[in-house]
């Protein structure tokens, strides 16, 4: 094996092993998984050759849930146990669900930590668990096709998703046993799929009208760097709404009452969707509806009528378009390229209106259903380290302002929307009572003045504040938003340098302990020994740390380290290698920590060196000009 290295055609023998990575488009209506093979990114089909996995999960008592086409086929006969469009409920609270849920035929129950639960024959499930089932199905598909374990994935989210929705998506990935390297905004993924980073420059718009969400993003491209200038959208507007508009019309025509049974409503929506899809290529299509009493209604739907029914929804997408342009500080005429994403952009009326609005012919070459997954796969391949020389860099922004609640229920913005991430802001707080040792913070996300009109993200409780007279304590709270757009909060009392401990109560999400419990409870992990899984995780982490360290030492170890420093690092690395071959995950974990400790100075020097190199490059340019 070692003597004969087999590589796929067209691929050079890489110095390190090719890591299996995948991009996942976790959609409202359909989900896809894609990967880069032999240098080309494509979506992976199931055994029957279908690329789209319907985002539908069917629960039955005492049986494993069924995901995809199998679940979709029983949607009409068993609507209450067949969960569709779960993405709409991700990161939402029970209050939101009363609003959104009125259009979804499920039975909701309030869960712990404000998260809604859906009642099914297999018990009560959270939106995160339902999404995890979909992710598990995609993971299984990818691992069967690729013949190995996925090392990491990139999951896409609408650019407009708030922190709670992103966190819920990440949690679902974790629950499905995936290493989520990055959450990528769907429009950015689409731009990557079109290879817009190769050569083209200027301002582009990504118009993404999917099943349940609409997103518009304005991106600037410059020498391989994507910068999201602004993003806007409507997280409750999409093709499903069009289906409902058409279904409503059909019900009128067929004389079916609004309070018809769940099964009838499902049937109406399916007929509406088929008719809508047929009208993409045809001017008119026959429709046939079966009533609950067994009688039928047959009629005709023309594109003209369809356009009239959906026109208000299409117009509704142009408002966020205007807002995104204004936020980006560009005029519609400055948009050079418009990329179309999402199945609903196949509709002639949508293409017409978008072309008109931006005065540019939209790009439609890549299948609008697959384009996001393809882009995610390209990003996953790069993040996994399979393309060390790729210059691509994605710079994203935070889609909604982050704020904290102040006196009188007002929201004070600490990080305004469209700030490039990662980003951090520090804010100082003080105590208002003598000897106060704790305080609570309420973090919200949104643009409105009143906290009640914003989305509640989390309540933080700071403990261990040293007792002082009122107003004397200086508590510095740092809000750090990482490259995934996820918030992390730390606090420190400055006069005495005491780190306050923080207890996070996510308003609609899961706490870490809840996820741990779910992981334990889930069938997949109940079968496996938990320690075996931990051991595997630590071994993978150990390999990653060692490989990164070796590559770094080979590149600049001689330059940046003296003999003694290098010896210390090598010793720690050797200890880790020894621990790696043991079967004690705690020993590996400790050895990893020791390596990171020993190399922390080196890591910092490397970071500074790369910054200096970037600076030096510019200085040379300056002398030339």
């Amino acid at each position, binding site marked *: 094996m070692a003597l004969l290295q087999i590589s796929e055609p067209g691929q050079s023998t890489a110095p390190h092993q090719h890591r299996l990575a995948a991009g996942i488009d976790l959609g409202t209506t359909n989900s896809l998984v894609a990967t880069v093979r032999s240098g080309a990114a494509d979506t992976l089909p199931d055994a029957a050759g279908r690329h789209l996995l319907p985002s539908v999960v069917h629960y039955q008592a005492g049986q494993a849930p069924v995901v995809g086409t199998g679940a979709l086929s029983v949607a009409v006969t068993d609507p209450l146990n067949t969960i569709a469009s779960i993405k709409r409920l991700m990161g939402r609270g029970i209050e939101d669900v009363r609003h959104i849920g009125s259009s979804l035929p499920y039975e909701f129950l309030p869960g712990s930590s404000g998260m809604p639960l859906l009642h099914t024959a297999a018990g009560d499930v959270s939106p995160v668990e339902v999404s995890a089932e979909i992710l598990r199905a995609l993971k299984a598909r990818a691992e069967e096709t690729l013949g190995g374990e996925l090392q*990491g994935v990139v999951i896409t989210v609408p650019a407009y998703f708030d922190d709670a929705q992103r966190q819920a998506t990440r949690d679902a990935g974790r629950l499905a046993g995936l290493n989520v*390297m990055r959450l990528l905004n769907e429009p950015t993924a689409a731009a990557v799929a079109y290879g817009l980073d190769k050569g083209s420059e200027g301002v582009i718009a990504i118009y993404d009208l999917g099943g349940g969400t609409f997103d518009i993003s304005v991106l600037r491209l410059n*020498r391989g760097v994507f910068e999201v200038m602004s993003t806007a959208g409507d997280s409750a507007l999409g093709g499903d709404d069009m289906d409902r508009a058409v279904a409503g019309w059909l019900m009128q025509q067929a004389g079916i009452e609004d309070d018809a049974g769940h099964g009838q409503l499902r049937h109406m929506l399916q007929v509406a969707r088929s008719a809508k899809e047929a009208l993409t290529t045809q001017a008119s299509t026959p429709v046939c509806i079966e009533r609950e009493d067994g009688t039928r209604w047959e009629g005709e739907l023309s594109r003209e009528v369809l356009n009239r029914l959906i026109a208000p929804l299409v117009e*509704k997408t142009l408002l966020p378009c205007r807002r995104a342009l204004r936020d980006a500080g560009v005029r519609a005429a400055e948009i050079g390229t418009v990329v179309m994403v999402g199945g609903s952009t196949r509709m002639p009326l949508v293409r017409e209106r978008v072309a008109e609005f931006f005065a540019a012919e939209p790009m439609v070459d890549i299948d609008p259903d697959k384009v996001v997954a393809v882009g995610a796969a390209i990003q996953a391949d790069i993040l996994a*380290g399979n393309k060390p020389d790729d210059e691509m860099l994605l710079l994203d922004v935070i889609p909604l302002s982050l704020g904290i609640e102040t006196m009188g229920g007002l929201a004070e913005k600490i990080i305004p929307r469209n700030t*490039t991430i990662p980003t951090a802001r520090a804010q100082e707080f003080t105590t208002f009572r003598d000897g106060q040792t704790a305080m609570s913070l309420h973090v919200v996300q949104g643009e409105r003045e009143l906290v009640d009109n914003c989305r509640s993200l989390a309540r933080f409780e700071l403990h261990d504040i040293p007792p002082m007279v009122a107003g004397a304590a200086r508590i510095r709270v740092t809000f750090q938003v990482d490259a995934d757009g996820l918030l992390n909060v730390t606090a420190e009392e400055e006069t005495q340098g005491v780190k306050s401990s923080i207890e996070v109560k996510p308003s609609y999400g899961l706490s870490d302990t809840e996820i741990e419990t779910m992981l334990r409870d889930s069938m997949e992990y109940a079968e496996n020994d938990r320690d075996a899984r931990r051991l595997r995780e630590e071994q993978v982490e150990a390999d990653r740390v060692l490989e990164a360290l070796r590559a770094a030492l080979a590149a600049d170890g001689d330059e940046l380290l003296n003999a003694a420093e290098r010896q210390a690092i090598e010793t720690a690395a050797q200890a880790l290698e020894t621990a790696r071959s043991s079967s004690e995950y705690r020993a590996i974990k400790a050895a990893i920590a020791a390596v990171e400790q020993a190399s922390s100075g080196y890591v910092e020097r490397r*970071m500074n060196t790369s910054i200096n*190199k970037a*600076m030096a490059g510019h200085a040379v340019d300056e002398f030339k000009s």
Partner: protein
Amino acid sequence: MPRSFDMDLGMLDSRYRELQRSVHPDRFASAGEAERRLSMQTATAINEGYQVLKDPLKRGRYLLELSGYNLADEPHTTRDTTFLMEQMELREALGEVRGSSDAFAALENIMDRIAADIVNLQSLLRENFERANAADLESAAGNLMKMQFFRRLQEEVMDLEAALEDELA
């Protein structure tokens, strides 16, 4: 980058991007925990620096601070009557937008006027920071305060524009 109020935004942009290219967390997705944390912190600092340098108001404040001016001494009021008149006229115009025949054209008009005012302030600030004596720093602080006023007005115009659009929807 040279220390001056004048900013070659093209150069700033390309420097910013090259720096991010070398430190961004995406470059360290398969690296160890400590390296990933450091990368995020460095990328955060670069983002912050870029935001400050890109924006004339923040850049001016930063330069003032670098020159030893205590930002706590910043003026909050002005007796500049030309400036006060301009503010009043603009606010009046903003108040009349709703009654005008073409509200969006009226808003664009106001925006153009504010933009011109800001450009004027920028050239004053450029001179302030070129000389950078004590009186100039004092005057720069005043000009930055005026710029802040115009900024707030711009925000109000945009809020009104958004409100009008929502009403049309």
